[in-house]
């Protein structure tokens, strides 16, 4: 038994090493090589896509692991974006108001703008405010044991409420027109300048890695297994002495906070935030990225976002009309042919095939796969031990 455990541990360590190497390699490619190779506007585009992959990670937590399909992540995404945009808007000489206020005859800065004058407060706010908003919404929904489709509908309804509210509040946050960040400065540098954009890009790459590892930590231990348990059978969880409400609220809040980070990074690399970020199709698209990449895999969320968004960019550049059809087709293919997404397909099917072809593993031809049956293996091991 001990020999076996040691082998398992060794394998685990080797796997971890390989993984760390891959991550470091990717970070070098994205953070060092690509900024040199790509022209500025391409880099900005890639940065935006990477920012979106962060929100996909958040959706993977709540949908992939916990089984709660949120169609309202646009809310948290936009809240994060607005928080940072408000800070940029306030980079003015003392006593001056952001320009748009004068259009509506507002003389005094609305009270909730004041905290965003400070950069550290803004950074905390763009994580905490979406987190609290998600936690509150989650608490109200989960406390009443609402789940499944009803949860999805409620999140979408909440999205519409926020969308309409932000659209109508010209005097508070410039309504439909949104807040433009490109013309503003951050630490005295124009936000749309190449150097600022490159910095945003690097921060985004770091944020992807940090959020990814944070999600990995969250989902690897007991907590993560409990999320899967809630997805598989919530009643059983309850009868085992756990209160699922707290877990679901926490995960939803974390997922919202992650969306906030993504929204802020996306906003500064887009140059503007408007209530359009809270339109229904955008939030649904986020779900599609995760579905394409593979639910409950984390890395799949990133791969899915990159793939769908890059495909969108290239296709819509060459065939602007086709993109929407392609997106629909992609979703249909994933649902019907790859229910576990690309990563799921690779893990369950392609990897096995490949390892047979490369001769890494013996092909199993019989049913009940005698060679791989754990009971047969255990018996064999015991016999070998006795022989020794």
């Amino acid at each position, binding site marked *: 038994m001990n020999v076996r455990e040691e082998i398992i541990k060794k394998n685990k360590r080797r796997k971890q090493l390989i993984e760390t190497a891959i991550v470091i390699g990717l970070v070098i490619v994205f953070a060092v090589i690509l900024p040199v190779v790509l022209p500025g506007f391409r880099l900005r585009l890639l940065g935006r896509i990477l920012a979106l992959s962060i929100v996909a990670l958040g959706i993977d937590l709540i949908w992939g692991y916990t089984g709660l399909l949120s169609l309202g992540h646009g809310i948290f995404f936009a809240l994060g974006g607005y928080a940072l945009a408000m800070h940029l808007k306030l980079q003015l000489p003392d006593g001056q108001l952001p320009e748009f206020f004068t259009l509506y005859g507002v003389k005094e800065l609305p009270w909730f703008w004041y905290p965003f004058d400070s950069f550290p407060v803004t950074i905390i706010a763009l994580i905490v405010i979406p987190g609290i908003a998600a936690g509150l919404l989650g608490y109200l929904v989960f406390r009443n044991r609402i789940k499944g489709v009803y949860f999805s509908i409620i999140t979408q309804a909440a999205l519409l409420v926020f969308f309409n509210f932000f659209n109508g509040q010209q005097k508070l946050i410039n309504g439909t027109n949104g807040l433009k960040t490109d013309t503003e400065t951050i630490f005295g540098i124009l936000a749309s300048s190449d150097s600022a954009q490159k910095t945003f890009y690097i921060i985004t790459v770091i944020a992807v890695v940090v959020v990814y590892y944070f999600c990995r930590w969250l989902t690897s231990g007991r907590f993560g297994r409990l999320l899967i348990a809630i997805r598989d059978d919530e009643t059983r969880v309850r*009868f085992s002495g756990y209160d699922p409400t707290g877990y679901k609220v926490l995960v939803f809040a974390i997922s919202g906070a992650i969306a906030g980070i993504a929204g802020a990074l996306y906003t500064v690399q887009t140059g503007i935030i408007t209530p359009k970020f809270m339109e229904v199709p955008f939030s649904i698209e986020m779900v599609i990225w995760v579905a394409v990449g593979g639910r409950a895999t984390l890395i799949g969320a990133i791969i899915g976002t990159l793939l769908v968004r890059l495909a969108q960019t290239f296709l819509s550049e060459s065939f602007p009309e086709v993109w929407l059809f392609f997106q629909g087709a992609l979703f249909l293919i994933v649902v019907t042919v790859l229910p576990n997404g690309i990563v799921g397909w690779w893990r369950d099917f392609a990897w096995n095939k490949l390892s047979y072809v490369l001769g890494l593993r013996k092909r199993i031809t019989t049913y009940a796969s005698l060679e791989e049956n754990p009971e047969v293996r255990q018996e064999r091991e015991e016999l070998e031990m006795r022989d020794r």
Partner: protein
Amino acid sequence: MSKILEIKNLTVSFDGFKALNDLNFSMESGELRVIIGPNGAGKTTFLDVITGKVQPTKGRVLFKGKNIKKNPEYKIARMGIGRKFQTPRVYLNLTVTENLDLVCNHNKNVFSTLFSRPKSGEIITVAGLLETIGLEAKANAQAALLSHGEKQRLEIGMLVAQSPDLLLVDEPAAGLTDEETENVGALLLSLAESHSIIAIEHDMEFVRQIANNKVTVLHQGSVLCEGTMDEVQNDPRVIEVYLGKAPSITQQQMNMLRIAASMAWADGNFEPEQIDVILSRLSREFATNVEHQDSLQKELQNYLAKNIPLEDLVPKLKSFGEKERVLKLSYEIISSNEINDREAVVYQKLLQLLDLPTEMVEQVEAEIDAQYK
């Protein structure tokens, strides 16, 4: 020993339908109690109330002397009640070890689950449980890959991991092969050494295997009877409830039978001689050929269970002839063994209700007395 579970006057109604009706139940700690009952008897609702899934409309559920009303499921589970569902409910996407480990966790708060690592005691418990349920070889296999019987065993293991004082097991043998059923039965028996268990079951073979103590029969939301397996199986009420066929005799005939049965129940003790008398007399009266009489005897036996007050039954007798036959039969029943005081009281009541001429009563009594001497 103290009572681990006590249920008093429990009623649960769903929109007026009473799933449980004034149910009383109690059980000592350390007992293995089997609950049987036909479909719709309220067995699952009974478990739902104990585990907090359904709130009682009326009545109290005391667990170790504490009222558990209005506690959510997870709190009741933490108090020490574990429940196994009818179909195995395990976390299919987790491995066997992970399934057990989750339940084993001593502190089930959100943040301690997030930040603390499994304690060594818990790891040892999981290893021990794997051995108990015989799934060591498949410890790292996904639960989805287990067979039905293995899932049942895993779920029972998860229950034990919760270290509850009271285990509720809902039809553990459903859908298992004979061999698996025996395994599960043996597992339950070994668990019964250290836990109190309530098992709900349909499979009579299985009940016989595990019921070493008392069996409770539920019917229409209340307890029909309680006793050892043998007592329960021979109780005519239980037989009636389980067979529940439409009677082949007429209403009038049934009425006579009911009166006879009530007379026999008068002293609270239905003697075999009394059953013989009722069955032989009535079958001869209701049927002409011998074969039919035999089959009728078997059927009638199932109807003897009910003890309905005479006041409800006697007014339904129409003709003079019927009343006379009832009188004859009743006197014969109580004479079949020594007439005791209680029987005499009920008999006097019957006479009053029948309201027959005194000479006739005396004549009938004399006839039968002569017959028994």
